[in-house]
C-alpha cells in the first residue's frame, strides 16, 4: 500500500502538542506538506483558501468542534469530497455514529500509534491501495 507523499494535509487540534505529534508522525510517513489549525474556524478558512487533499481533525475543540467542522466541510461544494479523519479521545458508540452520519471518512481514537495513523490514511484513499 502506498501513500501519495505529495498530498497536502490540514491537521486541526487545540493542543499544540498533538499538532506537533501529528506533524512529526506525518513527516515519518514522508508527508511534509502539512498545515496546522488550532480550531475548527481557522481550519475551515484555511481549507476555503486552499482545499487540501486530507483533513485530520480533533473533535473536542471550542467554539467550533471537529464535528461542526466536518459538517461544514461536507456542506461545502468545494470541499465536500475531501477525506476527513477524526482523531479524538471521544470513543463512545454515539460519537462514532454521529461522525459517520456527518460523513467522516475514518475515525482514530486517542491515544493512537503511527501504524494506525498510516493505515487510516491509506484507507481513505482506496484508489491508491
Amino acid at each position, binding site marked *: 500500500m502506498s501513500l501519495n507523499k505529495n498530498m497536502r494535509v490540514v491537521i486541526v*487540534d487545540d*493542543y*499544540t*502538542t*498533538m499538532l*506537533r*505529534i501529528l506533524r*512529526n*508522525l506525518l513527516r*515519518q510517513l514522508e508527508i511534509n506538506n502539512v498545515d496546522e489549525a488550532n480550531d475548527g474556524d481557522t481550519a475551515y478558512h484555511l481549507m476555503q483558501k486552499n482545499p487540501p487533499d486530507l483533513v485530520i481533525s480533533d473533535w*473536542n475543540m471550542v467554539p467550533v468542534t471537529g464535528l461542526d467542522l466536518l459538517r461544514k466541510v461536507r456542506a461545502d461544494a468545494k470541499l465536500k469530497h475531501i477525506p476527513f479523519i477524526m482523531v479524538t*479521545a471521544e470513543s463512545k458508540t454515539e460519537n462514532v455514529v454521529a461522525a459517520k452520519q456527518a460523513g467522516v471518512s475514518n475515525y482514530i481514537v*486517542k*491515544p*493512537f*500509534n*503511527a501504524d494506525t495513523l498510516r493505515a487510516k490514511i491509506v484507507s481513505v484513499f482506496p484508489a491508491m491501495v
Partner: protein
Amino acid sequence: MSQNGSLQLPDAEGYLNRVIGELRALKAPHKNTLVSVLEYLSDHIRVTRNEIGALKSGSGNAQVFSTTTDELEEIVTETARATNRIMDAAESVEKVAVTLEPASAGALMDAVTSIYEASAFQDITGQRITKIVRALQSLEEKLAALASAFGPLDETFVANAPEGDAALLNGPQMEKTAASQTDIDALFASLG
C-alpha cells in the same frame, strides 16, 4: 418569615430558636424530647452555615476552588512544557538518525516514533483535567447558590485550617506567583 409568610432558609435557625424558647416556657409533659430534636436541628443548621461559610472563604487567604483550578491548569501547562522538551530531544535524535547506516537509523527512528506516540499522554491528561476543572467550576456555582440560600454567612469561620508546620505545606508553587531561585538566594542571604 418572608413578607408572604413562608419560612425562608436564612430565618430557619432563628425561627427554631424562638420555637425552642417558647417550648421551654411551656409546662407541657414530654416537651424535652421535642426541644432536644429542635435543638439538634438548630445546631445542625448553624454548623452547616459555618461549614459553607468556611468553604466560601477557603482556608487561609486563598479561595479553595480557584486555587484548585489554578493548580490543575498548572499541571496542564507543566506537562505541555515537559512534552515539548521531550519532543525537542526526539526531533534532534531523528535528525541524527537519518545520517546513520540503515540498521541503526531504523532502530532510532522506531524509538523516536514511540516517543511521539507516547507524547499523546499530554493531550489525553489535558482533556481529563479540563473536565475536572469544569466539574469544579460547576460545583463552585452550586455552592454559591446554596450559600446564597442560607443568607449572610460567617466567612471568618475557617474549618480545619492547617496550623503550625502543616500550614507551611503549600507547594508546589504556582508559576505566576513563584519565587525564582534568585529570589530565594537573595532571601536566604538576607536571613544571615
